[in-house]
């Protein structure tokens, strides 16, 4: 059959119309599928694909217990219970269940929140544990929802609170290790991009799926020994109660490695309840962030400088008149009077006589005054070699550098350096003083103080390599030996009977004046003690400080007993062999 469309026939017109419509379709489809291709592919992806953040777990923090790591900070998943008051159909059951299961975690008057029908979201309870949440879920309550929240857990309570710091409500680490190592502890969130079903279950179909696994935060093992930390905190608390000191700090470190074993400040706080702290000063770790004039404990530094520069020996003598004139009108006196006449520098150290150490400062110069060359020598030893007035780099937030004036500074004059010879006129942190003192008694090697001993990995505990010295020969071995002996003799002369027999213990008291506008306070002094202990070598350095507004504390009377308490305990705990 041969169909022919006649010109002008209805069939031909119909064909033309159909062709026209087809052409419109084709053009429209071309526009949608070719020109608008990317736009619609994007819309489809938006509809079908979802992006999920795979949260990284915050790293755990361990302390040492002897040689073994123990968990100090962990993560716990807790739940926030919320309600949609509009859809809650059995208020009495909700209230009853929450009271019974999560009584301590519910909000005040949470039952009244359920009456607020204008709101679709009311938080009823926070920090509900998984077990509690499971019990509530089992009740099948309508209109109740749960939101997972990860929180830090501190099984040891307030122990080492200022070393640890805390994680605030926005998930940021604040203070202490949490603040300093926040980036390492946080890790890196992962990403999952996939086509999902209506229940948001990711499916493997699709060409644009992305799965980047989360990198969990580093699990840090501290060099802090929880037993030493506990002892130091307890001894400090007992000492503060005995002396009535409102503020106290103490620390212990290994002078052979720079590893910090304990660091305590009182009053303190519990990181798990940081939001209940009323005075933010309690967050501060005063061992590192509160520089002060350390006083007579720095006489060990002056003596070391003099010995190392070959201008004095401990057996050398000077004429003590209980006061010494600096320049034209500045007179330095001794706190302890009566040790007058020709006496040795050892005796000056034992009785903590300021005049002896100003004399050493003078002998570093021309013998009569604290000249520029004397000041240069002191600055070199105090600042450059023993690193006073510099950040130590310890892995804790808010470390303060302190101040030590260079001889080139207008403030770095003879009077300043004369007072520096007995530990006034400069600001240093306890950690700086203890770290420098460690170098003075360990043979002359300065180690960077550290609180990190290693990392816990999936393969187990990986201890950091031995802490490389920052500087060696900051003083000679001979100088170091003489300082070791001098401080031992200084302690042994009056306080040796307090120590366990057979061990080699040494130290130096410090009673420092507190600077106020225009001079020093007459009503306030800081008491401190800096010492070491061990057998054939010093195995620990301990520093203690007591202070308080308008309170007068003395190194020997108030701080020394705390040192003794910790030191005698440490000898047993560290299983130190007696000197043999």
């Amino acid at each position, binding site marked *: 059959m041969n169909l022919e469309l006649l010109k002008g026939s209805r069939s031909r017109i119909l064909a033309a119309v159909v062709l026209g419509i087809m052409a419109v379709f084709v053009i429209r489809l071309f526009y949608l599928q070719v020109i608008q291709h990317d736009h619609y592919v994007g819309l489809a992806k938006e509809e079908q694909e979802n992006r999920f953040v795979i949260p990284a777990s915050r790293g755990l923090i361990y302390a040492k217990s002897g040689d073994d790591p*123990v*968990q100090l900070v*962990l*993560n*716990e*998943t807790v739940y926030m219970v919320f309600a949609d008051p509009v859809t809650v159909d059995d208020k009495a059951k909700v209230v009853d269940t929450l009271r019974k299961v999560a009584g301590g975690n519910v909000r005040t008057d949470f039952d009244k929140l359920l009456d607020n029908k204008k709101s679709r979201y009311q938080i009823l309870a926070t920090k509900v*544990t*998984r*077990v509690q949440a499971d019990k509530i879920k089992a009740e099948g309550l309508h209109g109740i929802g749960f939101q997972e929240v990860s929180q830090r*857990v501190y*099984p*040891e*309570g307030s*122990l080492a609170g200022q070393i640890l710091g805390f994680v605030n409500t926005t998930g940021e680490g604040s203070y202490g290790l949490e603040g300093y190592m926040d980036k390492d502890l946080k890790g890196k969130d992962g990403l999952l991009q996939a086509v999902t079903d209506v229940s948001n*279950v*990711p*499916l*493997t*179909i699709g060409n644009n799926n992305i799965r980047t696994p989360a990198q969990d935060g580093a699990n840090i093992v501290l060099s802090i020994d*929880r*037993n030493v930390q*506990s002892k130091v905190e307890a001894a400090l608390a007992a000492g503060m109660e005995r002396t009535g000191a409102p503020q106290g700090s103490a620390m212990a470190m290994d002078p052979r490695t720079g590893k910090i074993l304990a660091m305590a400040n009182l009053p303190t706080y519990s990181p798990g309840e940081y939001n209940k702290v009323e005075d933010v000063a309690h967050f501060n770790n005063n061992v590192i962030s509160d520089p002060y004039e350390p006083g007579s404990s720095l006489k060990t530094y002056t003596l070391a400088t003099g010995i190392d520069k070959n201008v004095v020996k401990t057996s050398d003598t000077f004429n003590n008149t209980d006061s010494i004139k600096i320049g034209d009108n500045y007179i330095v006196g001794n706190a302890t009077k009566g040790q007058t006449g020709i006496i040795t520098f050892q005796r000056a150290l034992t009785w903590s006589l300021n005049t002896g150490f100003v004399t050493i400062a003078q002998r570093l110069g021309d013998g009569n005054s604290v000249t520029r060359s004397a000041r240069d020598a002191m600055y070199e030893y105090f600042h450059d070699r023993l690193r006073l007035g510099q950040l130590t780099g310890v892995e804790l937030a808010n470390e303060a550098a302190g101040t030590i004036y260079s001889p080139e500074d207008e403030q770095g004059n003879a009077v300043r350096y004369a007072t520096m010879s007995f530990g006034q006129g400069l600001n240093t942190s306890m950690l700086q003083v203890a770290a420098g003192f460690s170098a003075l008694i360990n043979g002359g090697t300065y180690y960077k103080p550290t609180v990190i001993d290693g990392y816990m990995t999936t393969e187990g505990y990986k201890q950091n390599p031995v802490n490389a010295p920052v500087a060696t020969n900051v003083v000679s071995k001979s100088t170091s030996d003489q300082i070791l002996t001098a401080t031992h003799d200084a302690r042994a002369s009056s306080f040796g009977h307090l120590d366990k027999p057979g061990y080699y213990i040494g130290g130096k008291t410090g009673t420092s004046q507190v600077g106020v506008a225009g001079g020093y306070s007459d009503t306030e002094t800081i008491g401190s003690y800096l010492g070491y202990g061990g057998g054939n070598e010093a195995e620990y350095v301990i520093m203690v400080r007591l202070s308080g507004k308008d309170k007068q504390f003395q190194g020997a009377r108030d701080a020394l007993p705390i040192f003794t308490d910790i030191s005698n305990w440490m000898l*047993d705990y560290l*299983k130190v*062999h*007696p000197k*043999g």
Partner: protein
Amino acid sequence: MSNSQNTYYASRRQQNWSRNQNTTRFVSAVKLGPVAHTVLVALMITVLGLIYLTQATRATSYDYESQKIDSQIAELTDQKNDLNIENARLTALETVKKSSVAANLTTPVSTEYVQQ
């Protein structure tokens, strides 16, 4: 008898036949028309489609299985963490200090060390 050259192309098989070897030729008794062909093709396409759908659905069912296992892993990890926390609390210094074992400990009278 005279031989003549065949000018038409003959296949090798045909040439063999021409040599009177024992050969058979199958001729189907069933004749398929155009409709039957169309139906068969449609059936084949349907079967292939079903196979494709089965495979695609199976892959998705693995996803659900995987999701279920992931949930189980998360649940077990949570339980492990809870136990870990409980362990840390039970071995915390304060707990140990309050234990009956610690209460019965005594301080050694003297300590001696053996030099090695």
